[in-house]
């Protein structure tokens, strides 16, 4: 007797587990239009057994055995299978933008899927081989509860969603399940779709309009005091990256301006200024930006001035241009160098500076 009581408790708890996993509400099968007053089971439990935590339902005319199937279909038996949602087709799962940390997924629901269908998405990376779940915030995690079940519109509808936070350079497998109704009876997981993330990419180069290989030298030429001199050569920086937040091109000088050793290290100071009005100065001015795709490339103030407005070139890394917080292909920025001397700027032929141009991808 004791054994039977234990077994009964275990059965109840197990059923509780089952319905807690697959259902969120359990009430008797009734509505404004109908009510099932009485129906029986063979040797099974009680038709209306229920508590706050579970309900038991049964049906007639089903046999809980035999599951005809082929490679294309599966026909289950029993009430659960009868009210089970249709398994969705394989989702459309692609890497839209050469991304390294996200893939685009669109649920392909069946044409007759009711609007109250809810879907959950399983995803596995090649490395782990273990399916996890797409969370409501489109990240991937192990958590799987009601929050993972969302309607078709909530999963982006026909536009789909970006599944984010993925591992670069990985093959991902995704499949979708559906559920509907009072018991939210979950379908089987549908067919698998595959997509791959790429690795982060970054290419970068520096040239000038007349030099394609280093060492690069840009001559401002002779500066006549009181006049602004401009380099004839322009510095060209080219960048391509799939960094999701784009990239920034930085420029940094070695001195705080143009320095002459023969003039006792006199330095024509650099500042962000209009050289037409300044007595003396040195700086860079972005002239053109372009790209093959993405971006667009964008000059950052103060390097985006016109005329003789220049941006400072000192020992700090200064943001010269960016890719508008977006991936870019063959993004290019050109800038020229300008200088002006005043009447007392010491004469010398060795004014110089060394610029370092680098790029940082914002991944």
């Amino acid at each position, binding site marked *: 007797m004791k054994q039977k009581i234990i077994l009964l408790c275990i059965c109840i708890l197990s059923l509780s587990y089952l319905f807690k996993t697959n259902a969120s509400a359990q009430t008797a099968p009734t509505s404004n239009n109908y009510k099932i007053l009485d129906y029986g089971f063979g040797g099974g439990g009680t038709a209306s057994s229920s508590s706050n935590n579970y309900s038991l339902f049964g049906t007639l005319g089903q046999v809980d055995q035999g599951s005809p199937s082929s490679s294309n279909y599966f026909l289950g038996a029993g009430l659960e299978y009868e009210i089970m949602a249709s398994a969705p087709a394989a989702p459309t799962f692609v890497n839209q933008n050469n991304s*390294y940390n996200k893939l685009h997924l669109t649920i392909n629901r069946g044409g007759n899927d009711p609007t109250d269908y809810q879907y959950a998405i399983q995803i596995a990376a090649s490395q782990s081989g273990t399916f996890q779940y797409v969370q409501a915030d489109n990240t991937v995690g192990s958590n799987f509860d009601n929050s993972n079940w969302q309607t078709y519109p909530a999963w982006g509808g026909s536009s789909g969603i970006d599944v984010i936070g993925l*591992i670069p350079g990985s093959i991902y497998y995704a499949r979708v399940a559906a559920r509907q109704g009072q018991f939210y009876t979950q379908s089987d997981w549908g067919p698998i779709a595959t997509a791959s993330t790429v690795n982060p990419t970054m290419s970068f180069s520096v040239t000038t309009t007349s030099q394609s290989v280093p060492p690069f*030298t840009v001559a401002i030429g002779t500066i006549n005091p009181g006049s602004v001199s401009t380099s004839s050569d322009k510095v060209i920086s080219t960048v391509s990256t799939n960094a999701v937040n784009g990239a920034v091109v930085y420029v940094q000088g070695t001195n705080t301006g143009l320095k002459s050793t023969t003039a006792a290290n006199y330095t024509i100071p650099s500042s962000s200024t209009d050289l037409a009005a300044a007595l003396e100065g040195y700086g860079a001015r972005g002239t053109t930006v372009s790209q093959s795709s993405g971006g667009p490339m964008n000059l950052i103030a103060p390097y985006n001035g016109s005329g003789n407005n220049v941006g400072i070139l000192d020992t700090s890394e200064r943001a010269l241009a960016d890719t508008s917080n977006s991936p870019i292909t063959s993004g290019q920025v050109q800038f020229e160098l300008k200088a002006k001397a005043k009447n007392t700027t010491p004469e010398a032929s060795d004014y110089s500076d060394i610029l370092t*141009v680098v790029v940082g991808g914002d991944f």
Partner: protein
Amino acid sequence: MSRNKKLFLFIRNSKVITILQILALIFYVVYPLFSPTKANATITEGFVRFNRLSTGAAISGTACLKTSTSGTETGVVITFPLGWTISGTASNWTVSTSGLPLDPADGTTPATAWPGIGTATSVNGLNVVFPSSDLSTGTFYCFNFAGASSTIGSAGNDQTGSLKTQGGSPYVDNMTWATSIVTSNADQISVTASVSATMTFSLSGNSIALGTLSTSAVTSGNVTQTVSTNARNGWVSWIQGTSTTGGTGGGLHSSSANADIPSPSSFPNITDLASNTGVVIDVDSGTGSPTVAAGYDGSNSTSGGHFDGGVYHMTASNTVPASGNTITINVRAKVAATQAAASDYADTLVAVAAGQF
């Protein structure tokens, strides 16, 4: 098999089943407490930017992260690309939090110094581990790093590394980044320029009329000399007379009286005409404070120095480039009672300057 034996087996199996189900139940209850709710955290943005992208250059740069993951960070790990030379000595990896970049997301928000950052605590291959305190979500944190005895690897695109924060399972955040390395010094541009030499010189006038000279008072007149030059060592100016018929080689000469008012003494001695007669030159410093030569640096309004006909003597100088440096050239005279009367005492002074380039 007897009925009793079957019952025994059933009971025994039931016990096994019961135990298994109890274990399953315990697992069901307990597992969620240990189950991670989020395996792959997301990063709003992050980067590792190097100060040089040239192969062989010393490794230094800036690491930044803005996390959206709630976790308690205890360390940060930078993993450098394959083939880079990474010092295995943790103390070689130093950090700073000055001059941090702006958040590229908006281009205006200054970075927050990475809390708890310090000299690396360990190095394992390409992985350098720095200490860290807990990061708040949505804050753009950065720190600068430099690795002594560590150099960038070969040139090439798409060289990947990672920036990870410790304190999770196994990390709170794990960001992969890529950089591009160029050939030696192909990330630098040498900028050159020359500043041309300039020099301007002028006098405020070309005549000084002393009028009728006195035997008791000193008469003076002057012109202003202006010099501008960017000669890096400044400038020097000189003066000379034209008449050489004075008693000591310079002075004012009258053709009609065939007489001279001499410039007394000799250069670089100063003569005070308050107690002497003759004609002298005195120089006063003006704009730019040029240095007056001792030979013409009279101490009062009656003294001055000797000038010669045909021989330049330095009047003033400056050691730095000048913009509108001025000196006042005073000519002072007093005659003796025996000085021949004439109205045409005169001389032509020549003032010149040169830049010291």
